[in-house]
């Protein structure tokens, strides 16, 4: 069922989001921004990367609508735009929960198989 209100724009947005999220540096940048806005220099600091390289990642994130620029003209801080990310992770999260249920039951089956294999419990 399609969540109401977003119409047909979701699949395209979702695709751009996933493409942007495919890179570990970009995910780390987003994780940093989840704690508050930051300038390009601040974002570059924890990475062994030049500012232009970080700027390139920021452009991809910006194009995907995942981040935006703050008002401070001097610092141009980047900030997280949670909505597209929430859409993507929301879908993935629901999918994950479905499989978590399956694998939780599989854990129980495996525990039983393991117990049955223990020499102490074996009839042989």
């Amino acid at each position, binding site marked *: 069922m399609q969540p109401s209100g977003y119409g047909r724009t979701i699949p395209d947005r*979702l695709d751009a989001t996933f493409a942007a999220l495919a890179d570990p540096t970009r995910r780390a940048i987003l994780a940093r921004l989840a704690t508050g806005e930051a300038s390009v220099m601040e974002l570059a600091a924890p990475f062994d990367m030049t500012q232009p390289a970080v700027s390139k990642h920021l452009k991809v994130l910006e194009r995907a609508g995942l981040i935006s620029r703050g008002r401070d003209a001097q610092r141009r801080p980047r900030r997280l735009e949670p909505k597209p990310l929430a859409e993507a992770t929301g879908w993935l999260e629901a999918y994950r929960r479905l499989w978590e249920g399956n694998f939780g*039951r599989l854990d129980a089956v495996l525990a039983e198989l*393991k117990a049955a294999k223990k020499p102490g419990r074996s009839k042989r």
Partner: protein
Amino acid sequence: MKSSGALKVTAQSDREIVMTRVFDAPRNLVFDAYTKPELLKRWLGVFGDRTMPICEVDLRVGGKYRWVWRGADGKEMGVRGVYREVVRPERLVNTEKFDEAWYPGESLITATFVEQGGKTTLTVTMRYESKEARDAVIKSPMESGVAKSYDNLAELLASGEIQRGART
């Protein structure tokens, strides 16, 4: 509630979904649970009132499988496919096609079982025919709208491969 390992799900490339999960059991057991009908029936897709009355597995290259689930209301859901690679207990490749096509085309599922220290890492890669099909699969369990929690989001981002992300 987390048991032996957290399940990681990622949308890899534009046609794939990858799931990774660690199980506290040697891989021959995980492989068995993954391929033997009497064991599959106990965990795969059987929640609430849903059972798996049909679970046929012909575990060899070119062999077919047929699984049907039935809900309390009598409604059935079926899937079938062919095994493309069977390397016990480390690798399994099969096709997947649901009777009611809720995603277009057929998908290719690759499962690898890697054992270390008595634990098994299961990695399942689902490759769809198109990104539209992949997106349909990701969206399928969504029935109550989009998850909006910002905290949840930060947690998700900070987990998994993200080492440097600060947790909030």
